[in-house]
């Protein structure tokens, strides 16, 4: 079973960046296909069951998307692509989309650094608990600890408090002086400052502790027993859910599969959001963690440029640069502290899919060598969780990306056929501004 669709612009990811890109390109008269694995648009940050839950900004963008004429393909999982086409599993079959330009708006995922007990049921991601509550999980009366880093802790704590969970504390691993310096600089982004204050009011009953992190978790008689440290002392707290994370990792699998150049972990783009591969654009989190406001601007720039309206895109450069400065400030203030890289012991699981403990791994291995020796990264998540851990703990170079980038039904794979195997893109080709 195979279906085909032609588009001027194909966009992967229907969060703020993808929505803004789709709106910009479709309102410029282009035929747009917008794909997302989720059942509807919104991405993680605008995940919702009813639009009433969303901010006015989010509702306005979703309304514009509806009216724009862009074709939204929900539940479409892209498993392979080239600069000119996408292969997706859509409604149980293969869907091929041929496009003149691609925009990768694939978002980010959480980054975890392993500690003893992190695989216990009840230990959830910070963004993970947010997603589960937005999907309808009822945690009324549950005792919850949030222990992670960065601005994401605040909306998650607010969501938990409003949901009726008993939020015991919010632990920020960054030291007080860094958090204070970051907060003191927030006047440059007044919107963010107001938002942070509103979130803090929503969880005013819970303490917000800086310089505090989880050292281990164990199964207790009733729920979890979590041990925290603030460098001066260690103490234990009982809870039902521990929400933890060490920031975000940009999702760059598709960009890497296309041979787009990276700067460290993020996709390198020019001023028009074009990657090193001509006519392939990236917007939002894959180009650096800057949040929804930045994603909207970057998506708009990518969408306009892909639609041939680069001059109009230039008007949005100053706003984008302001958001990038925010991303840099976040990166500096909330970098994971060295202690977080040393929490795992020899028995601590690093690869959750294959149950590979830290003790099975050797320093000096690349991700590929580690995989061949231990099966690490060979489970269904395809190294999405353990890859960043290997990189953080051992400096292991990430393995190459291979198709299918998600576990895919054999029927859909068969539909894609051999012409879907991406051509290798020679590196070093200068990116032509596509106007």
């Amino acid at each position, binding site marked *: 079973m195979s279906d085909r669709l032609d588009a001027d612009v194909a966009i992967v990811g229907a969060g703020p960046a993808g929505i803004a890109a789709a709106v910009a390109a479709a309102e410029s008269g282009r035929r747009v296909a917008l794909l997302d*694995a*989720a*059942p509807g648009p919104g991405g*993680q940050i605008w995940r919702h*069951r*009813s639009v009433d839950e969303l901010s006015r900004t989010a509702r306005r963008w979703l309304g514009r998307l509806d009216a724009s004429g862009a074709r939204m393909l929900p539940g479409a999982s892209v498993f392979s692509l080239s600069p000119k086409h996408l292969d997706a599993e859509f409604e149980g079959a293969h869907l091929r989309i041929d496009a003149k330009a691609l925009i990768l708006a694939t978002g980010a*995922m*959480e980054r*975890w650094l392993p500690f003893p007990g992190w*695989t*216990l*049921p*009840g*230990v*959830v*991601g910070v*963004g*993970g*608990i*947010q*997603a*589960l*509550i937005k*999907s*309808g*999980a*009822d*945690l009324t009366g549950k005792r919850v600890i949030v222990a992670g880093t960065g601005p994401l802790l605040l909306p998650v704590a607010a969501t938990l408090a409003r949901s009726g969970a008993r939020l015991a504390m919010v632990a920020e691993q960054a030291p007080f002086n860094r958090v204070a310096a970051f907060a003191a600089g927030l006047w440059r982004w007044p919107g963010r400052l107001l938002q942070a204050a509103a979130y803090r009011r929503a969880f005013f009953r819970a303490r917000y502790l800086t310089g505090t992190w989880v050292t281990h978790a164990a199964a207790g008689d009733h729920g979890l027993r979590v041990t925290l440290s603030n460098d001066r002392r260690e103490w234990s707290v009982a809870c039902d859910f521990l929400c933890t994370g060490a920031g975000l990792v940009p999702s760059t699998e598709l960009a890497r599969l296309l041979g787009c150049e990276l700067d460290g972990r993020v996709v390198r783009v020019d001023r028009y959001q074009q990657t090193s591969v001509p006519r392939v654009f990236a917007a939002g989190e894959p180009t650096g963690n800057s949040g929804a406001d930045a994603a909207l601007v970057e998506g708009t720039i990518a969408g306009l440029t892909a639609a041939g309206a680069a001059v109009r895109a230039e008007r949005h450069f100053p706003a984008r640069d302001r958001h990038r400065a925010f991303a840099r400030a976040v990166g500096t203030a909330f970098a994971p502290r060295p202690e977080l890289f040393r929490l795992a012991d020899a028995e601590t*699981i690093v690869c*959750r*899919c*294959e*149950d590979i403990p830290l003790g099975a791994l050797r320093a000096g291995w690349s991700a590929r060598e580690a995989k061949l020796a231990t099966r690490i990264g060979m*489970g*269904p*998540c395809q190294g*999405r*969780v353990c890859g960043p851990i290997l990189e953080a703990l051992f400096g292991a170079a990430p393995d190459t990306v291979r198709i299918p980038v998600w*576990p895919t039904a054999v029927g859909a794979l068969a539909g894609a056929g051999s012409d879907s195997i991406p051509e290798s893109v020679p590196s070093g080709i200068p990116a032509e501004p596509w106007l």
Partner: protein
Amino acid sequence: MAAPVEIRINGVSHRVPADVSLAAALLSMGFGVMHRSVSGMPRGPVCGMGICFECQVIVDGDPHRRACLERVRDGMEVRTDE
């Protein structure tokens, strides 16, 4: 809120709101363990967005379904590996 639907979890019927994900429904009802790892450790959801595969359950006989990506449906037959 939409009318509730009935799903069977490990052979027992439960009424759940119609507009929730399966992972959310399971968590709300106290099914924190959704599958066992390759070496038999109990595991529950982590990422909530389809990446970690720790919320795998059996849906209508189909294994390896990620409960966080699955919307509840009336008559859905779910097995957790608890």
